[in-house]
């Protein structure tokens, strides 16, 4: 019996010929990503030795630029850490900063076939790069940084074969909402994406889907490596790598076909995405006070392009705050050059610097009591973006942008 993508990556990283579901592996970690929150006074532990500074990346993203003194103190601590241990890949506030998973994507730090950990649950984002990328807690992150190793329990793998092509106005987020709504959680399971539909799915779209693997409670969400991916990585990172595609006789606990042509715009109702998706039309009466596009899932250049397309020549409805947060400062610049920022701001959007910000209710867009928000970000848990009585609907950037214009939730096709 052959191996799935994730099993092949683990076999290489644990120096074994064969790895199968049910095993536990101890693997070499290729990249460990630390965040500003890794250095916050209430999280950090003083590190005495690092295994290899070249395997560490530091990105400030959660509280950036520092909105309060506690955050600022952590930032100062982290800068000293990076200096002490000679961390070259340090993305402090400035032109090469952004949300960690998005910076990792911009730079292609997550190499195909490699193992990456980070102290944030959406680290699975880098699964788009054929990488075994997993969010871990602060202790495991420090373990990886100091020992160079970590462990994984190898779960069963569910394979999704993508076929067809998304129609205009339908995006990767809708694919995720379909998966979450139809199949629910994937606790203890790995998700593998491949199939002919991949050819029509850009890297940014794959990133959205892989990022949302965390919301499916998956262990890993990994894409096959095709020529598009190999070209993307080679254009940004000259380090050699060994991509891993599944064996023809790999064992899957289930194999499901997803017809991209059949996807439609969906919305997740508040509090969970698990089996909670409905067609946009079902909630069109919902009035909103905030519309947000951003996060590691939906802060890509494609997402901003889509938002700009929808709002071009229109105005945000009175009483709605429309916040757009690019995933990285690099994306922000590209969006400026492409004219998206101009279009968004003319419509009345507030475009913020790259940060996690409103996504986790940290700063720059925290919700008040009783408010309703539609978000193109990662999570709609109760209280996620601020007050626990606020309601958070989740949708694609197109649906969020259209809703900002309408003042209530609406299908982007309707305002077009």
């Amino acid at each position, binding site marked *: 019996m052959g191996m799935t993508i994730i099993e092949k990556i683990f076999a290489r990283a644990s120096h074994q010929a064969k790895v199968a579901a049910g095993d536990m592996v101890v693997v070499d970690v290729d990249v460990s990503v630390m965040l500003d929150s890794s250095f916050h006074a209430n999280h950090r532990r003083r590190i005495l030795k690092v295994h290899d500074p070249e395997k560490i990346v530091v990105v400030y993203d959660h509280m950036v630029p520092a909105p309060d003194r506690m955050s600022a103190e952590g930032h100062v601590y982290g800068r000293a850490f990076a200096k002490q241990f000679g961390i070259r890949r340090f993305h402090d506030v400035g032109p090469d900063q952004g949300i960690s998973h998005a910076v990792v994507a911009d730079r292609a730090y997550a190499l195909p076939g490699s193992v990456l950990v980070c102290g944030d*649950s959406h680290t699975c984002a880098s699964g788009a790069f054929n990488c075994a990328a997993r969010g871990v807690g602060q202790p495991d992150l420090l373990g990886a940084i100091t020992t160079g190793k970590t462990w994984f329990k190898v779960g069963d793998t569910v394979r999704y074969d993508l076929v067809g092509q998304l129609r205009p106005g339908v995006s990767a987020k809708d694919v995720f909402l379909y998966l979450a709504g139809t199949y629910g959680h994937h*606790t203890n399971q790995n998700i593998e994406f491949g199939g002919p539909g991949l050819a029509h799915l850009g890297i940014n779209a794959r990133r959205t889907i892989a990022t949302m693997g965390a919301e499916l*409670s998956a262990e890993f969400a990994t894409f096959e490596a095709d020529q598009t991916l190999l070209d993307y990585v080679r254009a940004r990172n000259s380090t050699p790598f060994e991509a891993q595609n599944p064996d023809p006789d790999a064992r899957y606990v289930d194999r499901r076909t997803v017809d991209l042509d059949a996807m439609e715009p969906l919305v997740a109702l508040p509090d*969970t995405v698990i089996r909670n998706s409905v067609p946009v039309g079902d909630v069109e009466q919902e009035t909103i006070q905030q519309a947000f596009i951003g996060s590691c899932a939906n802060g890509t250049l494609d997402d901003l392009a889509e938002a700009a397309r929808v709002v071009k020549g229109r105005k945000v409805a009175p009483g709605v705050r429309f916040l757009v947060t690019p995933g990285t400062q690099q994306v922000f610049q590209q969006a400026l050059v492409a004219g998206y920022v101009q279009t968004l701001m003319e419509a009345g959007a507030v475009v913020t610097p790259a940060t996690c910000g409103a996504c986790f209710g940290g700063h720059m867009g925290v919700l008040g009591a009783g408010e309703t928000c539609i978000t193109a970000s990662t999570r709609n848990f109760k*209280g996620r973006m601020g007050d626990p009585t606020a309601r958070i609907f989740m949708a694609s950037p197109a649906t969020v942008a259209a809703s900002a214009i309408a003042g209530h939730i609406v299908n982007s096709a309707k305002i077009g």
Partner: protein
Amino acid sequence: MVSGAVWTFDDNINTDLILPGDMLFATEAEQRRAVFRANRPGWVDEVHQGDVIVGGLNFGMGSSRPAARSLRNAGVAAVLAESINGLFFRNAVNFGLIALEVPGVHAAFVEGQTAIVSLEDFTVRNRESNIVLQARPIPQMLLDLMLGGGLYPHLERKGLLEPRLGVP
């Protein structure tokens, strides 16, 4: 052997319910006070040291935040659930909270009954009904960490982290 009074929770209990976002950078004591604030206000005053949480599917879904530590600090001796999110489980291992996947556990307990957990044979018994369930075994290396106070003391002993006495 762990034995404690049971609190029952449903499927998909997420990390933000256990450790709300606005408490992310608060002290451990403040974080403890906020456990289940949104879905079960007042629970932290009712729970006793050594109590046991029985959950449904996908317990602990969500963030990398140390939600397991907050449950431990609230007095919870063990989490028994139908299935447990992998990231929550890692934090349980690393912060010394017993967390077991026990198929059938949600239906087998009514709140207030007593769960008796054996980590020798990974069984869970309902003291009142005498139903015995089989938990999924935890690999020895992880069990040692879980019962040994978590990962930090281990890294301290290896000289990799500065010791912080009394802070697991």
